[in-house]
């Protein structure tokens, strides 16, 4: 019986010129968006790889320099594009793609995000994700809004019910019929786009496959939820116009108003400090000490005393190591400590803001899907943070190596300008490599939204099951 209704729904819908036109328009949009995103991703990935190689080449071939000059010469590192970012560009367009790493200074992109925090959860541009998350629900609405109401208006519902069909079976049949059409449009496009990825230049491992499958499941659930809502609204609406208005209202509320309101609420509840305040606070604490009672000159004096005592000498000149190298590294470590402390506060603010979005996502399938697919595509806030931290760790490591060389090899009697290192040494510093977080990490971040999708599916299923026999037949 169910199969019969599904078949009828599919046949009836695909023969409807309005559905044909809207499906073709959407399909064209979807294919275009996916292809454009994919090409864009490919180009960006290529450019970044080239830039990374070039920048490392520039580092290696910087010529002979003092290690501290080399630390200031610095390196640019680039954020690699995620393989699946063509499906969801996420916050990538709003965050930096490169970080300049040098001595004494933390990369700016980390705390540039303090100013960009509201952008982390705002609308994207026209992308595949936008089509999946906002336009396909619109198609679902157009496919479903009159599925019951029109039958009621035209009288076919009476005839169908008169055949002994329960409203529950009819509701399920209509729901699955519409859903089949949606999947018929969605699945081939997403599968083809994935299998057309340039496997020669992009490494696709098991994790990528897993993330891709989870993205499909997330969207499949999201579309199912929208189909359930649309079918239920159509079933209980007085007429098709009322059904359409209600559904467009729900779409507008869940896809436009609630996400914006959630972002504003997050910002209100957890305001992020400005970049100026952030920098000032670090500078002040570096200068005066974290507690304000340990100024930099006092710290330096204490360190000098400690080192002199360690080497059992009276003056810096008597040290067998380069005092300046030790002092520079100690300064680095102190700045890092201050920075970590300050940044952990800002990071907590971002985390709190995103938690608001996650919790609202539990109640709003659009937000849940957006957060989850962004995470699985590797373009969400947590991925950016992971990258930024990895880059910062790399900076600390290479500056430490340079300071250590200075400490051990730059003898005090050699003038700064006379102590130089060359290509051979620069090459010992490996290029920056970034490891993308695993699926488990992403799911751990977005578990509320993931759970929300299942919650909605089950809850709407229960509502349909309980109330389907109350669907008016006239």
């Amino acid at each position, binding site marked *: *019986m169910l199969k019969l209704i599904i078949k009828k729904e599919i046949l009836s819908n695909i*023969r*409807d010129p309005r559905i044909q036109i809207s499906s073709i328009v959407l399909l064209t949009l979807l294919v275009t968006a996916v292809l454009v995103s994919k090409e864009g991703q490919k180009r960006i990935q290529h450019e970044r790889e080239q830039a990374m190689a070039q920048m490392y080449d520039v580092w290696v071939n910087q010529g002979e320099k003092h290690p501290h000059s080399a630390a200031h010469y610095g390196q640019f590192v680039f954020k690699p594009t995620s393989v699946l970012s063509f499906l969801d560009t996420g916050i990538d367009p709003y965050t930096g793609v490169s970080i300049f790493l040098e001595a004494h200074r933390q990369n700016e992109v980390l705390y540039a995000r303090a100013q960009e925090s509201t952008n982390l959860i705002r609308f994207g541009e026209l992308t595949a994700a936008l089509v999946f998350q906002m336009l396909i629900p619109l198609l679902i609405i157009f496919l479903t809004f009159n599925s019951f109401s029109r039958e009621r208006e035209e009288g076919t519902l009476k005839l169908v*019910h008169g*055949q002994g069909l*329960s409203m529950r079976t009819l509701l399920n049949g209509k729901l699955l019929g519409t859903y089949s059409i949606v999947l018929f449009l969605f699945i081939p496009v997403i599968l083809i786009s994935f299998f057309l990825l340039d496997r020669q230049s992009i490494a696709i491992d098991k994790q990528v496959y897993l993330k891709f499958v989870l993205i499909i499941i997330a969207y499949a659930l999201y579309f199912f939820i929208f189909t359930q809502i649309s079918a239920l609204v159509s079933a209980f609406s007085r007429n098709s116009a009322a059904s359409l208005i209600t559904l467009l209202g729900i779409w507008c509320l869940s896809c436009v108003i609630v996400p914006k309101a959630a972002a504003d609420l997050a910002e209100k509840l957890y305001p992020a400090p400005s970049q100026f305040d952030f920098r000032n606070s670090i500078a002040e604490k570096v200068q005066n000490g974290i507690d304000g009672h340990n100024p930099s000159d006092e710290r330096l004096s204490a360190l000098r005393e400690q080192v002199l005592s360690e080497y059992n000498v009276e003056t810096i000149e008597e040290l067998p190591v380069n005092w300046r190298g030790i002092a520079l590294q100690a300064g680095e470590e102190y700045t890092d400590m201050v920075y970590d402390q300050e940044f952990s506060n800002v990071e907590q603010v971002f985390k709190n803001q995103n938690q608001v979005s996650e919790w609202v996502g539990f109640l709003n399938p659009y937000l849940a899907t957006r957060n989850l697919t962004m995470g699985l595509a590797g373009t969400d806030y947590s991925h950016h943070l992971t990258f930024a931290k990895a880059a910062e760790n790399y900076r600390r490591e290479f500056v430490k190596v340079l300071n250590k060389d200075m400490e051990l090899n730059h003898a005090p009697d050699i003038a700064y300008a006379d102590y130089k290192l060359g290509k051979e040494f620069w090459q010992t510093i490996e290029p920056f490599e970034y490891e993308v977080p695993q699926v488990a990490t992403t799911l751990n971040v977005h578990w509320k939204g993931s759970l929300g999708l299942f919650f909605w599916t089950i809850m709407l299923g229960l509502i349909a099951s309980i109330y389907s026999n109350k669907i008016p*037949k*006239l």
Partner: protein
Amino acid sequence: MLETFNLTKKYGELTALDTLNLRVDAGELFCLLGANGAGKTTTINLLMGFIQPTSGKAKVNGIDVVKNPVETKKHISYIPENLSLYSNLTGLENLQFFTGLSGLSPSKEELTQMLESVDLQKEAIHKRVSQYSKGMRQKVGIAIAKAKNASSLLLDEPTSGLDPEASNNFASLLAEMRDKGMAILMATHDLFRAKESGTHIGIMKSGELVHTLKSDEISLQELEKLYLETMKSTLTYA
């Protein structure tokens, strides 16, 4: 067999159907006559379970319509006044769908034969219903009702808007189904058809069944006179 016991339907203060007691046995065609709003369609809607009664009971083959809504449908075929079918499907596809809902799975040849048996033109069978006239749609509706092979048939003004020939053919088909032992309840405005095809005639007024007659015990003229008098009293009453 169709039965109602003090069947009543109220919409707030308005009584659409007032304590209706009716029985249609196998092989009977009961025609309900009455002005618009007399309660004919309400009676059919209640028997079909489209609406719930305020009080009283409706039974099909002894099964309570309210308590067993799905079970009772197995015993009823239904043809509404404006028979709507799925306009994007052909006549054959519509018949296949509706017979399928009744749990039947006739072959395409059998379905084609069913449509031909109700005089639907061969060339129309594979055309989409959007191109059908009302008469053609009614024929598909009859084919659906026949295919179900239920013991009871409910018809809500099925001949309204049909041309005389189509109406005549329709009456013949009804007579055929009646003679095969179906219990048929038909709401109609057509006194002539009621007299010609019906075994029993009921005249309704303001939700009440005012007269119940056997059609072979009354002439068309007498029926017409009685009907008009009832309607006149309705107007006076109103």
